[in-house]
């Protein structure tokens, strides 16, 4: 899911928590104040085409399910627009019967989102902004 609204990690965690699961791993990627630019970041601004991004996010979830068949629930939520300091820009919640699959699949999902989903982050400070220099050529999830 891609949304302009604030993300709720607790809601995603609760959604992923199922009776047959003994493990739920939730990752939150939040806006931080530090940057390779040296500026004090006050907010991030994310850009995308929501249809393209959601198609790619669904492919990440499908790939995770194929790699870890024991996974029960996967939530991948990314925010677009302005995201203030300490607010989550991305939330991944994965549940499975046992912890190893949940940890491994959650890490795969966030790493794959960063590499395969068309999203762009603009770093904003008092008096200026720039596209993030922490960018990589987009990959296909089947190549990861």
């Amino acid at each position, binding site marked *: 899911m891609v949304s302009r609204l604030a993300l709720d990690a607790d809601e995603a965690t609760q959604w992923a928590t199922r009776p047959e699961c003994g493990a739920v791993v939730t990752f939150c990627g939040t806006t931080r104040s530090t940057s390779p630019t040296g500026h004090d970041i006050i907010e991030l601004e994310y*850009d995308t085409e929501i249809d*393209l991004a959601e198609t790619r996010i669904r492919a990440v979830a499908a790939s995770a399910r194929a790699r870890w068949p024991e996974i029960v629930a996967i939530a991948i939520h*990314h925010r677009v627009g302005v995201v203030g300091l300490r607010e989550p820009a991305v939330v991944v919640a994965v549940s499975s019967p046992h912890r190893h699959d949940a940890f491994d699949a959650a890490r795969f999902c966030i790493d794959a989102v960063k590499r*395969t989903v*068309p*999203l*762009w982050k603009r770093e904003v400070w008092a008096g200026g902004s720039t596209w993030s220099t922490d*960018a990589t*050529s987009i990959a*296909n999830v089947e190549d990861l």
Partner: protein
Amino acid sequence: MSRLILLGPAHEAAGIRRDDVDGSSVSEVLANARTRYGPNFAAVLAVSTVWLNGDTATLTQPVGPSDEIAVVPPVSGG
């Protein structure tokens, strides 16, 4: 002519998000886009991936009015 979608830094460099651009192949459409939008866009395009209808494109692929070409600069989500 094909529909061109310019994403993230490509949108900023071109000053437009969506446009219809002449050309009978991916490479012709992109060449016309470079001419239309100028050197800042050309610089972004040089480091971008190009999609044709959501899949990685090759420059020689033929295109028509129903095709959608996306310029996808290096990504920075998460």
